[in-house]
């Protein structure tokens, strides 16, 4: 399963995007998000970006006001996940042009679409920005 979930949370702890690759009930999701946000947002920039949580790891990175949190299995490569987060941000940057929290709020489905291109079934399947964006661009033309 590799990646279990991807969350984007702002500084206030509000979830801006949540993508789960395993089924959790709404209550479980809420509890999980609460715990993780509490754990990760309290950490400072000087601390490392990896947090052990329950039986898996959370790799997170902060970009401006937005935290990107990825829950992964224990044997996943943390540095690769950090690169993945960065790739995701770069991709969104390229599409929205200097992406900000509002872009993700108002274009949530696009952010989901990008993630769907990049990750399938918890595995990273696409790492080329232009490949990731081509279906979205096509769709933009369509509508």
């Amino acid at each position, binding site marked *: 399963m590799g990646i279990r979930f991807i969350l984007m949370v702002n500084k206030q702890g509000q979830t801006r995007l949540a993508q789960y690759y395993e089924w959790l009930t709404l209550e479980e999701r809420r509890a999980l998000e609460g715990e993780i946000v509490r754990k990760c947002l309290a*950490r400072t920039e000087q601390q490392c970006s990896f947090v052990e949580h329950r039986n898996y790891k959370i790799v997170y990175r902060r970009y401006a006001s937005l935290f990107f949190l990825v829950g992964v299995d224990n*044997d996943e490569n943390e540095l690769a996940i950090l690169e993945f987060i960065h790739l995701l941000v770069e991709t969104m940057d390229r599409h929205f042009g200097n992406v900000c929290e509002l872009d993700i709020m108002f274009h949530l489905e696009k952010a989901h679409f990008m993630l769907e291109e990049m990750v399938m079934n918890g595995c*990273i399947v696409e790492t080329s920005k232009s490949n990731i964006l081509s279906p979205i661009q096509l769709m933009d033309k369509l509508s």
Partner: protein
Amino acid sequence: MASTSIMDTLFQRNLDDLIKGFRQHQVKESVFIAKALEEIRREIKSTDLHTKSAALHKLSYLNSLHGIDMSFASFHAIEVMSSPQFLHKKIGYHAVTQSFHEDTPVMLLITNQLRKDLNSHNQYEVSLALECLARIGNIDLCRDLTPEVFTLLSSSKAFVKKKAVAVVLRVFEKYPDAVRVCFKRLVENLESSDPFIVSAVIGVFCELSLKDPRSYLPLAPEFYKILVDSKNNWLLIKVLKIFTKLAQLEPRLAKRVVEPICEHMRRTGAKSLLFECIRTVVSSLSEYESAVKLAVAKVREFLVDDDPNLKYLGLQALSTIAPKHLWAVLENKDFVVKSLSDGDFNIKLESLRLLMAMVSENNAIEITRVLVNYALKSDPEFCNEILGSILSTCSRNLYEVIVDFDWFASLLGEMARIPHCQKGEEIENQLIDIGMRVKDVRPELVSVSRDLLIDPALLGNPFLHRILSAAAWLSGEYVEFSRNPFELMEALLQPRTTLLPPSIRAVYVQSAFKVLIFCIHSYLISRGNGASSSCPENLSSGIAGTISVRKFPESSGLATLESPAHYEEDEEFDPRDITQPFEDLSIENGRDATFSIGQASTSASLPKNIFTQESIVNLLNLVELALGPLSVNHDVEIQERAGNVLGLIDLIKHEVLNPIVQGEEILAREETVASSVVKLMYDAFSKELGPVSSSAQARVPVPEGLMLNEDLADLEMVCGDVQSPLSSSFSLDSAQYGEILGVSPSNIQSKDESEPSNESTSLLAEHRKRHGLYYLSSEKTETVSNDYPPANDPMSQDKLNDDADDLVKFTEQSLAPKKKPNHAKPRPVVLKLDGDEISIAAKKPELMGDLLSGAVRDVLLGNEAVPASSLTNQSDKPSSRRKGKEKNIDLPLESENIGGEEMAGQGNTSSRRSKHHRSHGKERRHKGSEKNVEGKEDNVQKEKKKSNHSHHSHKARQKADEPLNVVTQTAVVPDFLL
């Protein structure tokens, strides 16, 4: 109706409006959501697809970010999903993917839609359907759509193919039979020219091989090619993960990959790839010295980096390698110690783990000293982490790193006083554990306990109550090592003990009881010494008792009159002994004394004069005063124990107080009563109780013919006649004492008391005769008892503490001294139990893993015919796994029947089988080395045969076959690797 629908359509709020509404914050969020939800519920029923999909879109948003339940819209989502318009379809798919799970009731309805979209010409529609399948596919969906996925695996569009590959993982997981259909194509895609497709395939294998790596050994050459040729870091990381698993299984493979991995390590600039290489080396290639050296050098680069992430990962890599190459940690010791004061809790924690890995018996004291000092300064959370790891490290393998137990005892006491300490339970356990296991440490333990007990401030901290409980127990149990029992008694009865929870207070009362008995006993003996003429026989036994070896009492709760343990060595053991009168006892004690006269009892070294008439009177008054109110305590344990103590005092007080007033003869008689009672109690408390292996009971073999799982309906009948003796003899100490106290002194004297239990034992004997088969014969017990406690031993059956006799045995047998040379102070003996808990603990996860991989292998084998129960048997015989894989690679569509027929044909004679085994193995090796490619098909044939053999052998459950399997198995791999 139609008009509202049009109105809805015209004035419907879309998602953007919804989000803007959220941002305006005009009303409370929950109110706003409720209002929006109301709209959505109305709109979603609309017949207009546009309105419907917009409503669904909003609902998905609320579900995803605000946790609103959207299960009511399942059916609408399916409707939107089947829209011909892509934008609607996408919204529908998104909603379904997000909100459906395997048991969603309407799941059946989407199969056809998915199939239609999987066959669509629009690759984006196909992609939507694949995504959906990957997320919510259950067994039905996966089964029904396997043909479509199979077709897509060879699609000409890379966009679709890549996703189809990723979906395969889900399909395999849910519907194992799909392996037969799809596996071959999946493997073919490894050769694809598109790096993303290869990456997706490797991703699938990476996940699969995590669960059951052995099955993928045959694919090693393909993986190897990628490892050497690929330039894509994502891909390389995944291949390395696969090799991490495979190299552990196949040493020759490890030898092959070690060089390319080192090459990557030297060359790559990507930290993620470098780290993955390091991780592979430290976890799977630790035998290759050069690789490890290189990896450790790279780890060092990580450690000195400013990036906390690299620091953390570096430390983590070190702790992975620590068990095998401790030098790597020692080399970086300075850094590790420095990291202990890092600003990051995670880094501190890793550094702590490493420090603990470095602990050995030579440096345990220093490291612990540093850590305890550090714990005093750190925040509560980390302080407890430190204490916890000190405790677990020091107790590892029965305290193997501890040489100086006196130091350890005082360390435990010191830890209890650290302000943030919350490890009360752990410290409690270890205090008692070393008290029971290590005889030499007891005096120190008592003095540590005294310091803890006597400090009234500690009683106010609830985290310390457990420790105080241990301290109270220890000081009662080993009171004869105490320098001043009176002081101890005051500590145990101090007013602030009201702060303790009842269960611990009960321990306090019981310990006070033991201290009291000890004091009076010592007093009587010293008085007896003064008037040696008064009662010679008593005196002699009394002295013998004092000088006698410390016969360490059983746990306070269970102390019964006598323990059969004591009589183990006596051939003529008889249940009657349980209540044997005191004459016997004293003889017994005398004998014991001769056994171990060498061990000077501390009580003898106590200044005799502290047990004066006056001090004893004060003591009795103190106890009466303190326990008086407790005899009406709400807690039964406290009440009962206090009652016992008070009853005893009542019984003996006047004798102890007025010896001089009475005439000599009276004195002699009366004192016999008092001292007899005291002596009895004293002896009862002096029985040694040692540690019992937690698995002791499990090691008692079930006697033949005994059905443990049988219905116990007739238990009543069977037990009816033993009920009464049992109930009386199982009583707890307090009840027993109560009985004794109730009996008049003359009764005790005249052995009347033993009569009823004689009766009960005869009943028991009769019962035993009738149900003989439920008992182990005593003969048998004798022969095997070295290893386990005779739980069914009828003699000990009327004893709750039948553990005790095993303990005596354990102590005798397992005293095997640990050789620890070159220490100024010899390491005291730590009692060990031959059933090491460690090995048992280790076995359990293994079993779990077996079950899991058994399931996966079953998936890959596709032999559903095998009953689940035999799976576990197979799981440790790996050859069948590979065969399953092989079969799938080359004959993906082969029907089950062929395998079954062959199996029936070949698997009949076991002798033939084993011969075949060997020859196949050899043949294969031979051929394989000759011609690689052509031999492959042959291999498959043979593999199949072989596996059928082994398959059969599993069924036959012949353990003898295991080595053979190993032989053939190791012979296979080179063919694929060369």
